[in-house]
């Protein structure tokens, strides 16, 4: 084992240049973290391996940055060219010096009066191209910033926040376009996925996630409810450069809990859609939960992996769906390869070969309340998942339990809340959850670490054989990726909700994560083994 002392090398800020080629090869660039999901396949796997089970006990904070007013932070920071870039709530964003954690620049915009959102003014991160950074603001705006100064370069209105639209997801850069998802299904909106020119901010295409009459899928809405049919796209998708397809999960149909006003399957809600990256044209779709009435969005990370199933190699897309099943799809055709529950499920006895759930009776929300499992938040919710090619396992968190679902009636009023009821916890059912490792080719659970309450943090795996995640009680945790044994923890003092990242700085591996309103960078102090 070669050991070396770190030299004190001065760091100069260089002109950032995140080329499209660099993005395509981002998995090979272990020193940086260039996009929300680490690579276009959304693996969140770092090839760095200085930190492993032999030295994890010495992992310690090296700096902490306090982003006042930016909590809660659901962000995944980007790291390149000596800087860390991250977004916070309420239209905050920052660039930090990797050496010290000190602020280099800051971006802030007041949240306009009248912005509505189901879940606060959260934001999940930047995208990068060239020397530009792209982020959405909560009021359904997309902005481009100069990565060197934070100066706004252009700003585009994605849609009208007064109608209930908002934006929270990290954009995805594909070639020279910025792909953006929308939120707002609780307000009677009609969802979409947009493409914007990275240079000018001009919109190139829009794919509506709710099919209109006359369009393919339009006959799955038996009334005019499609006009306010939901189908938000509030979590970042993934991209296969070889197939030139963008994969994006879509949210629940609206209104959430009362399906009486929207008979039919309600395409393309609760689905995975594969879009031609240049035109936004739909190549295929797979609907996980037809006519959903439990708010089980299918927006969870679409993770692109090549699997061997029945001896055959297949380009797959895997997802831990909020409806309680883990899926593997053929990402070329959209055909289902495997589906298996990872938590207690009472609404379906299974998924048939065509990919359609086999429904069980008595599960729909009612005026007096109906118990169904999983609960409103899933199963797995939006938090980043991770695939490790080292272990071959797919990692995610799950809320394990049931809830009582209620429905109600309400007149639709433009721009107003239109969820038509909610779900409540069941008395005496203590909130439990788990961190789960699943074999993606079968859906079989390999290990499960039971947690107190639902897991809150995103996942990061490393070539050191580790899985990092955080919990709502403030613990940042490292597990052995193969066994699920907790190896290390640190109490950060704030709930961990976003995605951890790993990067190399001055030859040393760092792990960074947002906790509460802080960003904390961890490393092993002293000399580092050059593995």
């Amino acid at each position, binding site marked *: 084992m070669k050991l070396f002392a770190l030299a004190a090398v001065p760091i100069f800020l260089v002109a950032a240049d995140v080329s499209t080629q660099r993005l395509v090869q981002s998995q090979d660039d272990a020193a940086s973290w260039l996009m929300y999901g680490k690579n276009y396949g959304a693996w969140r796997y770092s090839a760095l391996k200085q930190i492993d089970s032999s030295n994890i006990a010495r992992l310690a904070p090296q700096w902490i940055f306090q982003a006042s007013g930016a909590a809660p932070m659901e962000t995944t920071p980007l790291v390149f060219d000596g800087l860390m870039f991250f977004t916070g709530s309420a239209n905050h964003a920052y660039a930090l010096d990797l050496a010290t954690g000190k602020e280099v620049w800051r971006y802030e915009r007041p949240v306009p009066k009248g912005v509505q959102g189901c879940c606060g003014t959260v934001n999940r991160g930047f995208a990068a191209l060239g020397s530009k950074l792209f982020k959405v603001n909560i009021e359904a705006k997309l902005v481009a910033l100069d990565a060197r100064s934070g100066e706004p370069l252009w700003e585009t209105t994605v849609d009208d926040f007064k109608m209930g639209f908002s934006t929270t997801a990290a954009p995805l850069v594909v070639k020279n376009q910025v792909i953006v998802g929308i939120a707002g299904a609780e307000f009677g909106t009609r969802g979409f996925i947009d493409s914007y020119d990275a240079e000018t901010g001009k919109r190139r295409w829009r794919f509506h996630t709710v099919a209109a009459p006359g369009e393919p899928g339009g006959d799955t809405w038996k009334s005019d409810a499609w006009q306010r049919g939901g189908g938000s796209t509030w979590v970042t998708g993934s991209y296969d450069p070889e197939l030139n397809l963008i994969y994006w999960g879509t949210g629940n149909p609206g209104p959430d809990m009362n399906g009486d006003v929207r008979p039919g399957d309600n395409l393309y809600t609760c689905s995975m859609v594969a879009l031609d990256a240049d035109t936004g044209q739909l190549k295929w779709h797979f609907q996980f939960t037809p006519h959903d009435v439990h708010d089980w969005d299918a927006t969870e990370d679409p993770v692109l992996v090549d699997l061997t199933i029945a001896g055959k190699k297949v380009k797959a897309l895997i997802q831990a769906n909020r409806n309680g099943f883990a899926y593997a799809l053929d990402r070329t055709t959209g055909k289902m390869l495997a589906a298996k529950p990872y938590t207690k499920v009472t609404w379906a006895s299974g998924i048939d070969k065509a990919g359609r759930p086999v429904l069980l009776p008595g599960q729909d929300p009612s005026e007096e309340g109906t118990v169904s499992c999983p609960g409103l938040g899933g199963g797995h919710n939006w938090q980043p998942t991770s695939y490790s090619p080292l272990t071959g396992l797919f990692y995610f968190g799950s809320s394990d339990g049931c809830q009582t679902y209620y429905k109600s009636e309400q007149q639709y009023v433009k721009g107003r809340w239109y969820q038509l009821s909610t779900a409540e916890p069941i*008395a005496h059912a203590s909130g439990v959850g788990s961190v789960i490792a699943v074999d993606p080719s079968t859906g079989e659970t390999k290990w499960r670490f039971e947690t107190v309450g639902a897991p809150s943090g995103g996942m990061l795996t490393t070539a050191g054989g580790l899985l990092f995640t955080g919990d709502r009680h403030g613990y940042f945790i490292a597990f052995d990726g193969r066994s699920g044994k907790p190896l290390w*923890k640190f109490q950060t003092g704030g709930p961990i909700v976003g995605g951890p990242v790993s990067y190399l700085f001055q030859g040393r591996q760092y792990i960074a994560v947002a906790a509460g309103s802080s960003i904390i960078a961890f490393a092993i102090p002293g000399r580092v083994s050059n593995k």
Partner: protein
Amino acid sequence: MHIGRTVLLAFFLASFANAQNPLQNDPAAADTGRGVFRIYCSPCHGIRAQGARGPDLTQTLGASGKSDDDLFRIISTGSPGTEMPGFADSLDDENRWHTISYLRSIAKQQPAQVAGNAAAGRDLYWGKGGCPACHRIASKGGRLGPDLSRIGSARSAWYLRESVVAPSADITPGYNTIAVVQKDGKKITGVERGYDNFTAQLMDTTEEFHSFEKADVVSVKRESRSLMPDTYGKLLSAAELDDLLAYLTSLGRPEAGK
């Protein structure tokens, strides 16, 4: 004396203090507000606002004398010293007014009277009931159970009755029972003061604080039961129970002194 001006000023101040809901003439506002209420408020106040861990708003709101402006402030910033959080970060102004429209539509002006004699209930509480061993009112009593100084305004009457006769039916968050077996075989049981994936904190029956790493002990059990005896339904007669409930529901209520 400038009575006229004084009266005018008082009227102006009263109007200001009682700012009206700008959506009060909007017939759909209560309907929207019900939807908002079910998402944000029902976890504590119940799906139909009839109370649980939070007050029964159908009963308490009408008699509280609170103006729309008061309600808007409470929903926005919470109520300091109580379990009521603020929602200014999660609900915009209009949705807070929608919620108030809904609450006004369901609030009864003549709340149901709690049977029983509060003065007799006070004697029971501080005497035969032995409640101060674990509960505090106005800084008097034990620390093991929840402070009851304002419990009448924080819980519905039916919930309080259930809490007295069946204390484990629903546990206030943070008051589960934690039972620890240490490596030397010693068992420590107490009321939860913290519980997460790796540690547990508790207060034992002598009000001593303990903190444990789960990995350092034989077992840690978090039990969904209360340490409070479940015998009050037998210890007290029906009339005594009514008296005790009358006393408890008066605690923290503005009309308690009437």
